């Protein structure tokens, strides 16, 4: 039992926060709960603390509109949290699409689709930064928040909270795309929100840290990692995962049987290592 817990503790916690957040939002709309109102675009905790999606507001700014103070406060709260603490944790701890793409990924492993598509991934993971830039350009040209109009993330969380309509089709497309076309296709290659948080989360304190002395080179971490390029140091040097593309999902930590990966605070680790 404790072995299962050890192997899935972060996964269980992540599903708990992802689903918990949606339940709170749903309750706010359906039964008038006041704990967390709104949705992932903008919300309020207990009707007081505002939170806003910084990328959505960036698109609004690109359209040339004057952004309301409430939204700017919400952006500040969210930005500071991920910038200082969470890193790209939104993607693996909050975003509901993560559950869709994780399950596609899981099925890829079960059905050995990974091995059937062994060739180099056909598109670059940098596409997301292009899509990010393009969202802002199109927002400016068309006068509406461009990504917010097509975002499957918004369709899914809004759909769960307010009714999904044909939004399930977009979610299904992502699932099939990730399952059959491109490994980690949506979250790891295309999603501009992921790209945004990759840039924002680059400097956060919470980091996964590799302890090379413990590593037996089993590479289980690289199998489960949705952004495995960030684990380039495995078996080579004891350094933290510094790439902003790491989602802090901690799957690598829990699949490691040799205690070669841990969560740590960035600077503390470096000092300890160098003995300073």
């Amino acid at each position, binding site marked *: 039992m404790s072995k299962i817990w050890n192997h899935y503790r972060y996964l269980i916690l992540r599903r708990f926060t992802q689903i918990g957040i949606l339940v709170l939002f749903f309750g*706010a*709309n359906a039964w*008038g709960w006041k704990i967390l*109102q*709104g*949705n992932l*675009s*903008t*919300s*309020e905790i207990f009707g007081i603390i*505002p939170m*806003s*999606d910084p990328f*959505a*507001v960036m698109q*609004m700014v690109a*359209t*040339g*509109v*004057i*952004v*309301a103070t*409430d*939204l700017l406060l*919400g952006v500040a709260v969210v930005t500071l949290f991920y910038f200082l603490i969470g890193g790209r944790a939104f993607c693996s701890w909050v975003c509901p699409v993560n559950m869709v793409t994780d399950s596609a990924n899981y099925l890829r492993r079960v059905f050995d689709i990974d091995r059937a598509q062994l060739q180099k991934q056909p598109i670059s993971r940098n596409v997301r930064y*292009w*899509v990010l*830039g*393009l969202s802002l*350009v*199109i927002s400016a*040209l*068309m*006068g*509406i*928040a*461009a990504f*917010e*109009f*097509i975002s499957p993330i*918004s*369709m899914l969380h*809004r*759909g769960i*909270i*307010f*009714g*999904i*309509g*044909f*939004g399930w*089709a*977009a979610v299904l497309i992502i699932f099939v795309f990730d399952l059959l076309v491109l490994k980690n296709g949506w979250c790891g290659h295309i999603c501009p929100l992921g790209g945004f948080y990759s840039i924002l989360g680059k400097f956060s304190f919470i980091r996964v840290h590799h302890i090379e002395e413990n590593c037996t080179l089993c590479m289980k971490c690289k199998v489960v990692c949705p952004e495995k390029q960030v684990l380039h140091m495995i078996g080579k040097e004891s350094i933290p995962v510094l790439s902003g593309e790491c989602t802090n999902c901690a799957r690598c930590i829990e699949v490691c049987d040799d205690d070669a990966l841990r969560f740590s605070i960035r600077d503390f680790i470096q000092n300890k290592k160098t003995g300073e």
Partner: protein
Amino acid sequence: MSNHSEAKKPLSDRRKFILNMARGVGYAAIGGMVWSAYLDEAKASPLILRPPAAIKENDFLKTCIKCGLCVEACPYDTLKLAKPGDHMPIGTPFFTPRDIPCYMCEDIPCVPVCPSGALDEPSVTVDGHLDINVADMGLAVIDENSCIAFWGIQCDACYRACPILGQAITVEYSKNERTGKHAFLKPVVHADACTGCGMCEKACVTEKPAIFILPREVAMGKAGSHYIKGWDKKDEARLKDAHAIRTTTNISRKKAVDKLNAGFEGLLDE
């Protein structure tokens, strides 16, 4: 021979970078075109009815962050967020009066919660107090062909349902010439008082409502500055937007009288 070995030489990093960038721009241009074309269609929804105090549609689409707080605040479930498949700008709030009209809450709970300013509280505030009666969600329009009151059948469902009874909808009496002894009781909508709440549309007894709400942009014409109610001081204020268009031709360059006195030389040449 030397040509051949040159062709095999790997590309320099700089060239690779430039080529990759160029490729990225190419893809972005194609993707951007498809994306923009979709957005252009997706945002065009002239018949959508917005919550009270919504700013102009174009600005609304820019400003609304699609959080749904107005929807959650609405006690009657009037407001909905547009879903994929609703054929409305996705994620934005709207209402369908025939299903659930706006019940015009006095405290207008949907407006103050708006964090983005897409619902503009000052526009429904009169003397420091919220006043739903100045809201402007749309305008009731009557199809006289299907309204049974215009047939001569007695019905005042919309008049009775109107929350601003006697102001937004009044009933006008006229003689029914067909029977010679009955009266028409025809509902008339007054644009200055109507808030577009849609209670009339909800109440209308015909199979498809004969009175229905349209956004003001769609429902109303515009007289422009050429026509003024000379008997109405307020209406004359519109004249300040008026501007004359003057065209100058060879003929009109001089005053008409001078032109005539000068004879018609040159006039026929033109």
